């Protein structure tokens, strides 16, 4: 008998819990619509209240978008050495000015012999190539026309399979061109536009530093990076470069692996070969640099890390200010609506119903601010993209919405608690 009534009571208990949950869900939904209604009813007040949260969300998402855009850009345009390619050079890139000065003093350039050694010593690579460059300040001439600041590089024929350039017209160098130190060149589209706007460039002769080179091929257009044209170059065979410009040039050796895992193995092998050849003692650092995309990206990430730290600080301040404004307006709202709370309580609203109503209201308010922030930052991202680069990552949108809603929830707790604790008789007596 006792057992029976006990089971009955437990069943009733479960039913009651279901009922209470149901009630909370219903009140939560009611509170949600109420909050939107309140926002619509007081447009100006809502706008002023939410300004802090809107600015915080906009700042957060905009900065994340620009950094994300830059990341994509850097990964694509700057750190893109080619698929599974690393470059052996005199020093490690992007390590800061101090380190660069030190490396410049201490390290020795990579020489042709070392390139040849790597070519024969490395066990299994997809491609290996080398280039030597006269960066920047070179004039190229053709029949009285001059093009300034042209990059001139001596390259091995294998570089066409490793580097960014593709053959658009004519052909690239052959081993024969290199072996015979032929005075031929492969040019970027900027030179074609300048010298041969309506002519067939193949077979024409371009003069660099008093030496004539016959054009055998033209690269496809690459485009610009940070406004700098990437198509203003002349390539000549490496041996020709040695003959004409520098007997013992410092090289950048590009090694291409078959896949990402093998790249690590090849880097280690390269390091071993070069250290052995240069007789570097066990405890000493390399006197050369091995550069991969990751090296460049990690340097970039260090920079953006600092940007993020500052952004997080600013956003935190805005969010706290925004949250306090919301708390203030919610406290005012509780006072203003004391009578309403009294009515609701007299009709059976429990403390948690009232608590929920106000917490949801402030969360919805702040969340709306967050949504406005998202929209604003989408517009800003569009605008920034015109002059610079910006790409809104999905996680920034999610973080923005969740964070702003959480701020509203947190700063709504105190006012909501105040509303929930109101005495129904006192509240009903309050007239407004």
């Amino acid at each position: 008998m006792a057992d029976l009534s006990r089971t009955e009571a437990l069943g009733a208990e479960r039913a009651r819990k279901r009922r209470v949950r149901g009630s909370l869900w219903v009140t939560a939904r009611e509170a949600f619509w109420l909050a939107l209604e309140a926002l619509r009813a007081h447009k100006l007040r809502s706008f002023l209240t939410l300004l802090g949260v809107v600015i915080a969300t906009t700042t957060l998402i905009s900065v994340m978008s620009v950094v994300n855009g830059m990341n994509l850009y850097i990964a694509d345009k700057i750190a893109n050495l080619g698929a599974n390619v690393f470059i052996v050079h005199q020093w490690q890139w992007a390590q800061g000015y101090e380190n660069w000065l030190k490396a410049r003093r201490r390290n020795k350039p990579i020489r042709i012999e070392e390139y040849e050694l790597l070519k024969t010593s490395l066990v299994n690579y997809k491609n290996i190539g080398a280039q030597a460059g006269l960066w920047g300040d070179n004039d190229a001439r053709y029949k009285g026309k001059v093009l300034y600041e042209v990059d001139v590089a001596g390259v091995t024929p294998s570089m066409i399979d490793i580097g960014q350039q593709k053959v658009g017209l004519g052909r690239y160098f052959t081993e024969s061109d290199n072996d015979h130190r032929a005075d031929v060149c492969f040019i970027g589209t900027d030179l074609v536009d300048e010298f041969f706007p309506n002519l067939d460039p193949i077979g024409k002769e371009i003069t660099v530093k008093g030496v004539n080179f016959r054009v055998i091929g033209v690269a496809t257009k690459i485009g610009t990076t940070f406004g700098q044209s990437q198509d203003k170059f002349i390539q000549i065979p490496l041996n020709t470069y040695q003959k004409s410009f520098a007997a013992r040039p410092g090289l950048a050796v590009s090694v291409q692996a078959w896949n990402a895992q093998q790249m690590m193995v090849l880097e280690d092998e390269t390091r071993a070969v070069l250290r052995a050849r240069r007789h570097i003692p066990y405890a000493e650092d390399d006197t050369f640099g091995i550069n991969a995309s990751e090296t460049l990206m990690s340097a970039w990430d260090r920079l953006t890390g600092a940007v993020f730290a500052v952004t997080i600080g600013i956003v935190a301040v805005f969010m706290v200010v925004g949250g306090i404004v919301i708390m203030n307006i919610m406290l005012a709202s509780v006072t203003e609506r004391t009578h309403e709370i009294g009515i609701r309580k007299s009709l059976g609203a429990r403390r948690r119903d009232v608590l929920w109503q106000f917490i949801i209201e402030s969360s919805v308010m702040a969340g709306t601010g967050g949504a406005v922030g998202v929209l604003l930052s989408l517009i800003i991202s569009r605008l920034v993209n015109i002059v610079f680069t910006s790409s809104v990552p999905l996680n920034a949108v999610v973080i923005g919405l969740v964070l702003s809603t959480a701020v509203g929830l947190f700063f709504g707790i105190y006012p909501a608690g105040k509303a929930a604790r109101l005495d129904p008789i006192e509240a009903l007596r309050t007239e407004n």
Partner: protein
Amino acid sequence: MGWLAERKQEPMATQVAISTPEAQTMPADGIIIQTEDLWKTYDMGEAIAVHALSGVSFSIDKGEYVAIMGPSGSGKSTLMNLIGCLDTPTQGKYWLNQNLVSELSDDELAYIRNKEIGFVFQTFNLLPRASALHNVELPLIYSGMPAEERLQRAEEALRKVELGDRMHHRPNELSGGQRQRVAIARALVNNPSIMLADEPTGNLDTTTGEEIMRVLDRLHEGGNTIVLVTHEHDIAAHAHRILHIRDGRIDRDERVT
């Protein structure tokens, strides 16, 4: 009684309670309200205590139509707040529909107000920005009723007070009498044990007041238990029984025939 035991989450308490002296005094079926020596004392500091109610005992049967009358300051409002479960007595016992409500927590009182009591106030106390329909829906929202059923019940209640064509009007678009009828519909909608009307005609002119009283009379005829708080004899005359309150005590319990 059933749900009370569940609320305290002690299923066995139901059985234990039956043998205690308290439970033995539990009112019989058919008695909606029973109070036993109700005291309400306000502590004004400096050891001065004001007794708003000093030992009030009475009972009201199911289906009765009772008016509580008394001059202002008689303890009438305090008694109404206790009956309406808006407040708890300092001392004494109060059973509402066989629930001992004098010892409940705030949230339990809210639950009782929602299930057992329908309020009609002098100042209507409607939510100004909500439609008549939504105002009537409120008690159902707090009892967790799903939307379709809620809407149906609220519409039904509004039709009962002849406001079927004013459902989507806001209170400020309605006349005083119509507002009070919305309040009555709201009080009815959850099928409470009692309807508690506090000066329901106080803010209305005589004609409209009479009209509201006719609505209450009709509800009483339909089987509702109605408790009316008023200081007007004309209004109290609608009831079948008048409790006269003076200085926090029941002065006279008058049956009107």
